[in-house]
């Protein structure tokens, strides 16, 4: 089988990339979306809460509604989506091996491949929580699937470790369904979740959020009977402080402790990952170091808003289509994007400047909570390319800066080989 464009994953990233590629001029017959679940939509299908689509559609939709919009667009564009398809392997010359109930074992080639596999949750095994191994320990997303799709409750008395957005959303969901959520423990001195979710999922229901706390032991033989929590020492590597332990009787522990881009296929193709994003390193078109292989959405870096996933998938889909159609310009110079003070990672990691230099938007996450800062991108020779003042920034909210086209053109003409994204503190307290 040969296709001009194969997209791995039929969630929000894959669907938006497919729609963008067809809009850019590819025939839908030349596109194939491979989805491992029985329906497209990805994780949005279980995210039944509202708040999606404010940027993209100007209204607040639930996850299934947001997915539904893109499924509808893909359907209207006649884009083929093969469900129940598991991709087993990818090579860096764009050979995709997958299994499907109808076609069996298939090896397909493509002119371009877009990786849109999303991410998965960090599990108990990744945290090394001591204790027994009873039933009742779930990742928050797993519990979300049980309740919202399978239709059963995973427990009655719940402790949640981690205050990421999925954990907060599940605290509200389980409370509304009749469970007692006893507490949410967060290792860090601040929550990684959106302020809105802290207010609407915890404060609304009087659920205590314990910052700088962790679970130090899980109790129970067949089923969880309780957990021990303790305060951690900020000054000493966030180790539990002896004497602060507290036993909480519960039957369920939910873990909301981070998401990891799912990149087994990417590394299998020999594409190296950015240590900070756990996704492939890409240029501004979201093309990886392997020619014709793109990545977008949560497989590239974990996003906080699906609207940004769609936007990123647009970029990847549009450029993949343009490349297939032979309508892209040559790269005249590559510039590395590096991180400076206060910046954890950037996407893209490099800018491939083309003959007609275009404006480039750089997305990034900060390392800590800062108040009154200036976000800056500076060239190697010390010229400020773009800057923006912010009253507050937090690791949980992605930031971005756009380098204007004339500055990109000037960069191409200069001797500079890299640019740096950093924060400048404007005074005031941290």
């Amino acid at each position, binding site marked *: 089988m040969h296709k001009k464009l194969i997209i791995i994953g039929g969630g929000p990233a894959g669907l938006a990339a497919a729609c963008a590629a067809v809009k850019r001029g590819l025939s839908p017959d030349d596109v194939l979306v491979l989805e491992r679940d029985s329906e497209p939509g990805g994780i949005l299908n279980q995210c*039944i*809460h*509202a708040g999606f689509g404010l940027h993209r559609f100007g209204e607040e939709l*639930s996850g*299934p509604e947001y997915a539904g919009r893109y499924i509808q667009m893909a359907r209207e564009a006649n884009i083929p989506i093969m469900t129940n398809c598991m991709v087993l392997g990818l090579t860096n010359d764009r050979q995709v091996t997958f299994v499907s109930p109808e076609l069996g074992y298939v090896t397909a080639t493509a002119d371009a491949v877009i990786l849109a596999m999303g991410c998965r949750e960090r599990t108990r095994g990744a945290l090394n929580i001591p204790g027994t191994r009873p039933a009742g320990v779930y990742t928050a997303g797993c519990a979300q699937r049980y309740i919202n799709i399978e*239709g059963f409750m995973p427990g009655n008395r719940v402790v949640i470790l981690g205050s990421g957005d999925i954990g907060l959303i599940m605290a509200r969901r389980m409370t*509304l369904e009749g469970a007692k959520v006893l507490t949410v423990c967060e290792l860090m001195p601040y929550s990684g979740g959106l302020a809105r979710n802290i207010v609407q999922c915890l404060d609304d229901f009087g659920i205590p959020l314990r910052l700088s706390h962790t679970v130090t032991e899980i109790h129970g033989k067949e089923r969880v009977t309780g957990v021990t929590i303790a305060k951690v020492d900020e000054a000493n590597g966030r180790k539990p402080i002896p004497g602060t332990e507290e036993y909480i009787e519960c039957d369920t522990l939910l873990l909301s402790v981070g998401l990891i881009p799912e990149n087994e296929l990417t590394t299998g193709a020999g594409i190296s990952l950015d240590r900070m994003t756990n996704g492939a390193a890409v240029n501004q078109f979201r093309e990886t170091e392997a020619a014709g292989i793109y990545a977008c959405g949560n497989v590239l870096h974990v996003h906080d808003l699906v609207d940004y996933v769609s936007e990123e998938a647009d970029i990847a889909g549009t450029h993949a289509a343009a490349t297939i159609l032979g309508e892209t310009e040559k790269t005249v110079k590559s510039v590395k994007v590096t991180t400076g003070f206060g910046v954890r990672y950037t996407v893209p990691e490099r800018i491939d400047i083309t003959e007609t230099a275009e404006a480039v938007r750089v997305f990034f996450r900060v390392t800590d909570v800062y108040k009154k800062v200036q976000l800056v991108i500076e060239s190697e020779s010390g010229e400020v390319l773009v800057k923006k003042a912010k009253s507050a920034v*937090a690791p*949980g*909210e992605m930031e971005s800066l756009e380098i204007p086209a004339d500055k990109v053109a000037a960069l191409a003409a200069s001797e500079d080989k890299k640019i740096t994204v950093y924060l400048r503190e404007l005074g005031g307290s941290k």
Partner: protein
Amino acid sequence: MITKELTCVVCPAGCKVTVTLDENNQIIDVTGQTCPRGKTYAISEVTNPVRTLTSTVTVQTKDGAKMLPVRTDKPIPRPTLFEAMEIVRRTVVTAPVKTGDVLVENFIEEGINLIASKDFE
């Protein structure tokens, strides 16, 4: 005089806003916000906090019972959330159902409906 402390959720700054009310629950003062949007938010949170409720109901399909995601088409008063969940729990629908279909009319308040948020054939 009563004071209420809340965190503004309009932007990531997360200002701690204090609202002061008199004996008749009338707002006397709003302090702590750093922009006008914070004041608007604080006043609505103190006088009539509203939330969009999302949940699931049972939908009978030809492949058996499934979970249909649902939501209110407008926010409902926050104190009515649990009362609303009682109605959601009793609601059963039969496929086909389309996104936006009204499942319960005048849900909690007149003019607010419980609607489907996914298609089931």
